[in-house]
Every structure is written in C-alpha cells, then in structure tokens.
C-alpha cells in the first residue's frame, strides 16, 4: 500500500492539487482586494479633487454659475427638507404596516397580496417611482414641480417597503414569551404590542429606517423625473419652494463644461459621503448598543 502513496505519480498529483488549492485561495483574496481597491481608488480620487474645495464659502453658499463662489448649502437644505417629508410619512406608515402584518393580519388572500406587493416594491427600480411621482403628484394632483414636498413623497413611497421589511424582522425577533407574559396578566392584544413588543423592537426598526433614509438621501433618478433640478441661487425656505438636493447638485455640476466645477463636484461628493457614513455609523452603533440576543 505505502508504495502507492509514495509513488512519484501520486506525489506529483498531490502537489498539483495543493497548487490548485493555493491558486483558488489567492483568487478569492484577489477578488476582495480588487473590489476594495476600487473603493479606495474612488475615495482617493474624490478626496484628491475635492478636498481643496471645501471651505466655509463652499459649505455656506448656494449654487452659482461661478465655480469659485458656488456652494453646497442650498442643496443640503433641500435635502434636509426632502428627508423631513420622507421620514414624516414613511416612518409612521412603515411601522404601522409592519405591526399589522406581523402581529394582527389574518392569513387571507388580501394580506398575501399586500406582502407580495411590499416585497416587490422594495426591488422596483427607483426611476419607476419617479414616473409614479410625475404622473400622480404632479400631473394629477397638480403639486408644484421641483418642491421638497413632492420629492419627499416620492422617496417616502420608495423607503416605506424598506422600513416595513426591516420592521417586520425586528418585531419577529421579539420572543413570544414577552407577548405571553403580557397577555397572561390581562393586557389586551393592542396593549401587548404597543407597551411591550414595539419598545423592544424599536432599535431594530430604527436601524432599518436609518438605512432606508440613507438610501433615499443618495437617490437621484426619481427626483430627476419630478424636475428637482432647479438652479437654486438661494436656499429654499419651505416645502413648496423650488429646490434641489445634494446628489442632484452633484449631477448638475458634473454636467458643467467649466473644468473648475470638478473641484465643486468632488467636494459635494465628499460632503454627501460624510453624511451617509455618519448615518450608517449611527445605524451600526444603534444595532450594537441595543441589540438583545434572546
């Protein structure tokens, strides 16, 4: 027997297989390094081009045809107003829907339709939501174009399924013993959910909400459809003023022929990425801090 395992042919085959193993492993490592390298290149180029452009003038100014005085505050305020509308609509609706579907919904055909439709909405391309916003809010309801109100409504419809899905998962993670205990001492079903299940699920729901909001903050295509590409020389004052948002400002500046706007565009990208990273960081912090393993 031992001669078979020590024959030259066997040793050669074994060495080949081990080499193949090593190659495969390096291939995997290479894939990760390449992906992360691309991310690093992207960040490096934006920092290299944009870091010089970030100063007080840039952070406090609004759009201008002159690259050196154009700033990002007008767009940032537009983003803020839009996000307020999105949050105010999608969060309560999303949480209510998640509670209903997870805790109270009877298993009927109707409810199945609701579930299918939420799962699909979460995967519908964002530009389709823009077409919906254009056809419904602007053409049918005659709401003002380019307004944070309409942008926020459109993004809210897009964000709501994300909140519902993460909310359901968070509610599902609360163990049944909590519900049983509350019901056993005489709480009604609604009391059980609102006094006991919801507070325990809230960190999970908030994490999902922040991630959904971060996605909405970076979204451009649906807002392009509803005309949020106004040239805004002064920050918008209300929810119905024409305005633009941070990603849209990046898009508009990227179209400028003047090479000086490369600095502005990259700087605006840095500002946007800082906001997004702060939001995602907050979500991770919340998850780590309040996550309970039952």
């Amino acid at each position, binding site marked *: 027997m031992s001669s078979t395992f020590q024959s030259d042919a066997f040793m050669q085959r074994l060495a080949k297989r081990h080499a193949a193993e090593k190659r495969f492993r390096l291939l995997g490592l290479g894939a990760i390094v390449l992906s992360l390298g691309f991310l690093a290149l992207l960040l490096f180029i934006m920092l290299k081009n944009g870091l010089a452009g970030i100063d007080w003038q840039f952070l406090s100014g609004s759009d201008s045809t002159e690259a050196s005085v154009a700033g990002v505050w007008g767009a940032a305020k537009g983003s803020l107003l839009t996000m307020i509308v999105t949050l105010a609509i999608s969060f309560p609706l999303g949480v209510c829907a998640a509670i209903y579907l997870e805790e109270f919904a009877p298993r009927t055909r109707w409810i199945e339709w609701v579930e299918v439709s939420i799962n699909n909405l979460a995967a519908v391309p964002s530009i389709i939501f823009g077409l919906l916003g254009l056809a419904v809010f602007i053409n049918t309801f005659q709401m003002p174009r380019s307004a944070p109100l309409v942008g926020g409504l459109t993004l809210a419809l897009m964000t709501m399924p994300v909140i519902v899905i993460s909310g359901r998962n968070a509610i599902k993670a609360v163990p049944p013993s909590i519900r049983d205990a509350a019901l056993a001492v005489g709480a009604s079903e609604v009391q059980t959910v609102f006094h006991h299940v919801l507070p325990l699920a809230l960190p999970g729901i908030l994490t999902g909400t922040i991630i959904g909001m971060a996605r909405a903050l970076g979204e451009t295509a649906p807002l392009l459809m509803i005309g949020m590409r106004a040239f805004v020389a002064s920050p918008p004052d209300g929810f119905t003023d024409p305005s633009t948002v941070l990603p849209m400002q990046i*898009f508009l500046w990227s179209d400028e022929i003047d090479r000086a706007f490369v600095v502005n565009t990259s700087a605006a990208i840095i500002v946007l990425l800082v906001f997004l990273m702060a939001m995602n960081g907050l979500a991770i912090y919340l998850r780590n801090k309040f996550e309970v393993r039952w």
Partner: protein
Amino acid sequence: MLIAVVLAVVAGLGLIGWYTARAKARLLYTGRGSMRATANYHGLHLALWIAIPALIAFAVWTAVSPGLVNEAVLADPAAQMLPASDMERASILAEARAVASDPSTVAFNPLANRLAEPMRSAQTQFGFIGIALVLICALAGGGYAWTRIRADFPARSRVERGIMLLLLAASLIAILTTVGIVASLVFETALFFRDVSPWSFLTGTHWSPGNAIGADIDDNFGAVPLFWGTIYIGAIIAMIIAIPLGLMSAIYLTQYADAKVRRWTKPALEILAGVPTVVYGYFAALTIAPAIRDFAASLGYQNPSTESALAAGLVMGVMIIPFVSSMADDSIAAVPRAMSDGSLAMGATRSETIKKVVLPAALPGIVAGVMLAVSRAIGETMIVVMAAGATARLTADPLASMTTVTYQIVQMLTGDQEFDSPKTLSAFALGLVLFIVTLILNIIALRVVKRFREAYE
C-alpha cells in the same frame, strides 16, 4: 403653510379633548370595578373622534378645492378671454396661481396677471370654507364622543378597534402604491400606443424620437437598440465583472477568511453598495471613461468616444459586487455543513469541496441572487446617464457609446416639451417594459430562493 396650521390646530384640539374627557371620566369613578375602561381611554377615544374626521375632511377638501377655485376663477368676466384649448388654459391658470401666491412675480401672459386677483380671492374664500369644514368635523366628532363618556362605555375596545383600522390602512398603502405604479404606467402607455403601434415599438430597430413627426412616426420609435444597450451594459458587461468578483469574495469570506478578517472586510464591501449611484456615475465619467478612451485610441480606434458601454458597465459591475456577494454568502451558508465535511473527510481539498460540493448545492440560491442583481443593474439610471451616451445603436462593440432604457426615460422627460407629445409618453412605455421585466425577474428569483431555503430546512 396651510397644512402645518391645520395639523397643529387638529393636534391642539385633540390634546384639549383628551385632557377634558379624561377629567370628566375621572369624576365618574366611584370605586373598583365601577368603570369598564380607564379614564385615559375615554380621553383617547375622544381625541381620535376629533382627529380622524377632521383629517379626513381636510384630505377630501384638499383634493376638491383646486377644482372649485378654478371654476370660480373661470366664472370671472376676465376669464372669457381665455383660449379654448385646455392646454393653454391650464398653463395660464398655473401662471395666475403663481402670481396669486407671490405678487412679486410677473406672469409672462398679461391675462394671468388679471386673473391673479380673482384667483387670490377665490383661494381665500375656499380656504376659509375648508378651515370651517375641518373645524365642524372636529367639533361634531368630539361632541359625539363626549356624549359617550359613561361608566359602562367600553372605551378601550373602541379605541383599539380604531387603532386596528389605522394599522390596516397603513398596510394598504403598499397595495395602493403598486396599483398607482401600474395604473399610471399603463394609462400613459395606452396614450402612447394611440400614436405609435406597439409592434413597431417593440420590434423596430431605429430610435430617434427627435425626428418623430407625421406619417413615419412608427419608424422612429423602435426600442430594440435600447433593449439591447440595457442588456449589454447591465446583464452582460456588468455581470462579467460582478459575478466572478462577488462570488469569489463570498467564497473567500465564508470558507477561508478567519473571523477577524471577515468582521472588517464584510462591512467594507457593503460600503460599495452604500455609495450613491450618482457618485459612481461621476467616477465613471471622470476617471474610467477617459482611461478607456485612451486605451481605445492606443488600439487604433478612430475618434473613440468618451462615453462607452464598457465604462458604464464596468462601474455598474463594481456597484453590484456586494449585492452578488451577500446573496452568494447567504446561499453558501445555507448549505448544510455535513455536506462539505463529508467531502473533506474523503480527502478532497478545500477548493475541490467548494467547486464540486458546496457550489452545486448553493447554485439555485446563487442564480436567484444573480437574477436580482441583473434586475437591479438594468434599472440603474445615474451611471448610464453620466457614462453610457445617448446614441441608440445595435452593436456588440464595448467601446462604442450606447444608450439604455433608463437613459432614454430621463432624456425624454427632462426636456421642456409638452406633456402629451409621443416623445414624452414614450418614457412611460419604456418604464412599463422595465417594470414588467424587473417584476418577472424578482418574482422568479424570490420563488427560487424560497424553494431553495425549504430544501435544506
């Protein structure tokens, strides 16, 4: 801000109602078991009766009043001079509305300036009617609930029934959104197909809506080059990048990397998915596309274009990597450990186990993940808008500029044409095609994933 004022007033009334009803209910308390619900629930009951009718009245009134205002303005003598065409009429009224809300603006059309005054007075008049309506509803609801405050009134179960209805209404919004998407796309597409035949739209190979006038309109709305561009960029080039990189990353992370590496690498990969697409688009246009153009020039291309299918597809592929990798990660993790342990015990190396045992077992999940990734890639807009180009052409040359469905939707809707032109409406027809294709991909993928999970549970 009318909405803010109304909401504040309703909230204030509700708060007052809640407080007084609670106080009244407390007076009814005579001892243990004397009441069917606590005082707080009586307060909530009244507050709900104030807020819900008032908000419903406000919603109805907001939907109806613009029409009433317009009618009142049209009844004004100055409105006799309005043109008969609905389109022009609507635009002048819109201008008048703008002047009415902000007197400092000057309307382009003199008639709009004259209509601004009646417009403003009609708005004020109907505004007061609306506020009165909301107040009446709030008070009527509150009054009704006030008479119900009695010791034997089951306020809690009534409140809970109300809450249940609110929860149900919230979950129906999802269906409403889906219906809204389908209805608006189908409606506008039907308008489009009055002018252009569906057959020539779906099978024609020439796309130039700019020349679309008169009898040969059918020949200029052939969307096949758009479909091809979308598939070529989103389903071919992007996937050639994303599938190997995403899959290999997932394999490395699940099979080889130790916990410490995994803990740092996975979130870092997910950052790739969190970068907004407009940033990728700019990166593609600023860095990748010029590099590819120089590369093409060095290959001897004559006048290579800055915009190329390759630039857009490459960056899109990178964007999709974390998506493929996390789907593959889940499917590989779902393969029972006993299977790979068995293979390893037989003396197979790790890579042989992965290639011959784990991957085949995880394949359905991975395929479903790739389908979801394709559906995301073909719906992606900003990268192609900024890097792919506007020329519709049927070619397999990755260095040529190419256009996609999403690019054309943006192109058709961001110009300044009137809304009913076939050009604008074509965007909705393209949107409908995109919606249907992504829907089918998603449904199949979700089915496969579900069946795959059940197989190993």
